[in-house]
């Protein structure tokens, strides 16, 4: 499987063995009629391009083109003066990138983002896997009820829940510290202490996102044949051993898939720090995307911000490639 294709494994166009529901009815309903229409390949080809045109034009003009333009923008000093008066733009070569790599704020943003993704990611996946295992247990009924409940946080609007969590995290009046007080833990200044701010955001993100991966894990778990578990049980393996010997290996591909999409999503951290901490305290929660937004849309240093965006792209690309490489080794 090439690295440029998405991991869908169906590039060659396989079909399901049964027709889809609804198909049969239509087959019967469709009238057999008069002239044998000539559908030459070129007819089909023309129709195809017509069908594709709106989507491709939109995606090209409003996505691919801007991405390329971003690269161009990043080698200029396009800023507030240039928005009004484009001729004041100067070509600056790699100056933006140099400035970026010498900027302590950028390295801090990069560190913050990595912290978030590399700690929050695995934790989210762990919680997702745990709940998936719970929900997949044979002894549990009301599965879909619990499944719905666990998925609900994922569906909610991020801005809205960020605001709610901001109040939950309040040092004095927040419910979380109140709960901790019952456990004998002193109140934590979640959003005001630079050491706790990112963990606070991580915790909220785990809560918000675990439901999505949980569903994927459930699907993956259900695909594991029961005979393997039974065989292992006969061989004397306890539940823990069965997990490590049967479940985990067979979940391998799913695990990799989940971690790729989770990482990619987490590298794009923006709304939570924007709403909850405005990137503070002391820029402890400023992510790369937040910094790009600040530089590009608050200070209008668009050339500089484009450089940040491009670096983000490279980071995500490298992370994705690493994970695909790992998958190749396992497959």
């Amino acid at each position, binding site marked *: 499987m090439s690295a440029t294709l998405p991991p869908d494994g169906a590039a060659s166009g396989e079909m399901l063995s049964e027709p889809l529901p609804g198909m049969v009815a239509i087959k019967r309903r469709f009238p057999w009629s008069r002239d044998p229409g000539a559908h030459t390949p070129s007819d089909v080809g023309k129709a195809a391009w017509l069908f594709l045109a709106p989507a491709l034009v939109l995606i090209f003009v409003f996505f691919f083109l801007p991405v390329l333009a971003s690269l161009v923008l990043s080698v200029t000093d396009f800023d507030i*003066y240039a928005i*009004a008066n484009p001729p*004041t733009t100067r070509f600056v070569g790699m100056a933006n990138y140099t400035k970026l790599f010498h900027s302590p704020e950028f390295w801090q943003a990069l560190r913050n983002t990595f912290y978030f993704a590399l700690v929050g990611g695995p934790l989210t996946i762990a919680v997702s896997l745990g709940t998936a295992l719970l929900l997949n247990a044979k002894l549990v009924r009301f599965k879909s009820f619990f499944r719905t409940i666990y998925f609900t946080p994922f569906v909610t609007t991020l801005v809205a829940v960020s605001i709610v969590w*901001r109040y939950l995290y309040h040092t004095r009046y927040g419910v979380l510290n109140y709960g901790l007080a019952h456990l004998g833990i002193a109140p934590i200044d979640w959003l005001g202490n630079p050491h706790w701010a990112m963990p606070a955001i991580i915790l909220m993100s785990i809560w918000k996102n675990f439901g999505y991966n949980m569903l994927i894990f459930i699907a993956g778990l259900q695909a594991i044949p029961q005979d393997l578990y039974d065989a292992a049980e006969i061989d004397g393996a306890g539940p823990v051993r069965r997990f490590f010997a049967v479940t985990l290996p067979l979940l391998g591909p799913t695990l990799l898939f989940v971690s790729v999409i989770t990482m990619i999503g987490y590298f794009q951290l923006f709304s939570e720090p*924007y709403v909850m901490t405005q990137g*503070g305290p*002391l820029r402890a929660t400023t992510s790369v995307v937040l910094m790009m937004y600040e530089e590009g849309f*608050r*200070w*209008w240093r668009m050339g500089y911000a484009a450089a940040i965006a491009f670096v983000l792209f490279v980071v995500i690309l490298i992370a994705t490639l690493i994970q695909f490489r790992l998958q190749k080794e396992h497959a």
Partner: protein
Amino acid sequence: MGKMSLTQHLIGSLVVAFAFLAPASARAQDHRLPTNGSNGGGMDTHLFRPAVDSKGFFSVNGSDILAKAGYKEFPKTWADWTTAMKKIKSQMSPRQFPILMPTNEWPQPVMFALEAGSPILRDDGRYGAFEQPAFRKGFDFYLGFYRQGFASPVSSSQVSNLFQEFERGNIAMYISGPWYIGEFKNRLDSATQKKWMTAAMPGINGPGVSLALGSSLSLFAASQHKKEAWLLMEYMSRPAIQLQFYVLTGDLPPRKAAWQDTTFANNKYTRAFRDQLERVVPLPQVPEWEEIATTIYEHGEQAIRKAKTVDQTLASLDQDVNAMLEKRRYLLAQEKPKT
């Protein structure tokens, strides 16, 4: 031409900037064109800004707490202010503070610097003036609030409810603008309503300077409706209309003539602001101002939390702001007539 065309560039660009600045902070009035204080003149050549309202900073304080500390009136000098806060602090418990001064607000350090005589930027906005003694003096005064425990180093988002803190006596003073008069009237409980008062900002040797913020109407040189815009601006500048505007919105009028109305003569809260109006100082007039202001408080935060010394902070401020102004220097150099 020279500066005018640069200004026109700024005008044009600022159409974009003002329209699209994200509402990250509640004080949207910061994003307005600086004024040159002119009150007339040709619209094609001048940057004219009749203020629709004005917001200068002054302090809101709990007069009962001050009285307990022995102050019938709000202190007028920095020295008096410091002494008053010391006294108040000694009468407070450890979790209470004489003044609420969030660390992520730029008006405080800027105001103190202006009072100390600092221009903030020098050389017509080409370079930062942060390592000059005037700014250092203002900055030291600003840091003093935190060093001496008068203010808790919190950010504004950590304050859940300023009014409750006032009511409970956890805070005695707060620096803000006249828009808070309405808020205080509406939100404080009846017991506390009798106990708060406004006052002008203290200065080094007497009443101090304040910032000229507030919403403005700006006429853009590239406008297609200059006549209509001008008529509107002229209309909004009439004292009677400004008075009406105040009655409708609570925004205080910037023209002194409007203040002569009886509405204000009897309003004890706005008196401080009228007094303050005499001493407003404009901010540096560069389009990078918001970025610079944010940098000032960000560096201030580091100094407050002792992550950097004062010297390091001011040096890095100069460094960062000089980098920000590089394009401005370049464009100004281009504008200069070649000799």
